[in-house]
């Protein structure tokens, strides 16, 4: 059980670091066992370092910075479990446009290996999509239309 856990944990750690670095343009993210000699008796710490800033525990970072760390953690777990499709519901709500743009880039890249269906209110995310669906409710029921990619999304 422990051996199996450690092998998987290292795999998740590696993809967490590489995804975090992509999401932050060169930042460093690390998952660390609080008690490496007896892993299950301790927790797992999440350390993050944004370019130009010192390394800190994720709990002391800002709302948006913690969001970025959490998304990297989620994507690392997803690449370990390897599902055929992913649904993400407004995970970019607290991100500024620079972070949304980097996230959109990472999702675009990963969408060549697995299907992504992402709900977002941010224009920057829409512009990177292969296809955009507009949902609206004129009054009595919801409807969906596929939006052509070339239109200027007017918010």
């Amino acid at each position: 059980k422990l051996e199996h856990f450690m092998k998987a944990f290292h795999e998740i750690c590696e993809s967490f670091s590489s995804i975090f670095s992509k999401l932050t343009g060169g930042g460093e993210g690390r998952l660390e066992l609080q008690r490496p000699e007896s892993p299950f008796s301790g927790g797992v710490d999440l350390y993050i370092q944004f370019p130009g800033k010192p390394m800190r525990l994720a709990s002391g970072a800002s709302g948006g910075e913690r969001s970025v760390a959490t998304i990297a953690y989620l994507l690392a777990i997803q690449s370990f479990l390897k599902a055929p499709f992913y649904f993400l519901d407004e995970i970019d709500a607290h991100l500024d446009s620079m972070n949304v743009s980097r996230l959109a880039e990472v999702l675009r890249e990963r969408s060549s290996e697995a299907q992504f269906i992402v709900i977002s209110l941010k224009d920057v995310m829409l512009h990177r999509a292969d296809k955009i669906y507009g949902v609206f409710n004129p009054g009595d029921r919801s409807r969906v239309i596929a939006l052509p990619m070339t239109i200027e999304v007017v918010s």
Partner: protein
Amino acid sequence: THLTRIVLKNFKSFGGVTRLNLERGFNVITGPNGSGKSNIIDAVQFVLGEVASRRMRASDLTELIYDGGGGQRATVAQVSISLDNSDRSIPIDKPLVTIGRSIDRRGNSKYFLNGKRTSRRVLLDLLGMAGISPGGYNIVLQGAATRLSDLTPQERMASLKELI
């Protein structure tokens, strides 16, 4: 494997029939608050066999059936999804697999596989072989990411142990 189509019939705010044809790559769904975006995710959880109505933001499964107010109440809700199975990761020898689920006002669910009635158990087993499950990490509900970022180190270890 990937999702090629979702069809909703009187599911939550989607009165009548609604069809979505999905791309294999990067699909983005947008629209105003309250338009029905998260209801689409609830529909996918529903057809994959989710029985906890809470996860679909309903206090009872019959609340998943369209109710537009003013007498426009449907009697049955139905969702079906089609999956490209050309890599045969779902152990059925067909290039396209369609699964469906309906629910009526008494709370009775029916499950379908390629148009024929089947059981929830059979569907969960088949989909599980392809890494697809209703409560999996591959579906991140609205607000779940914020809750995940408030985890303590101990809670993070507990959730990893469950996963691995």
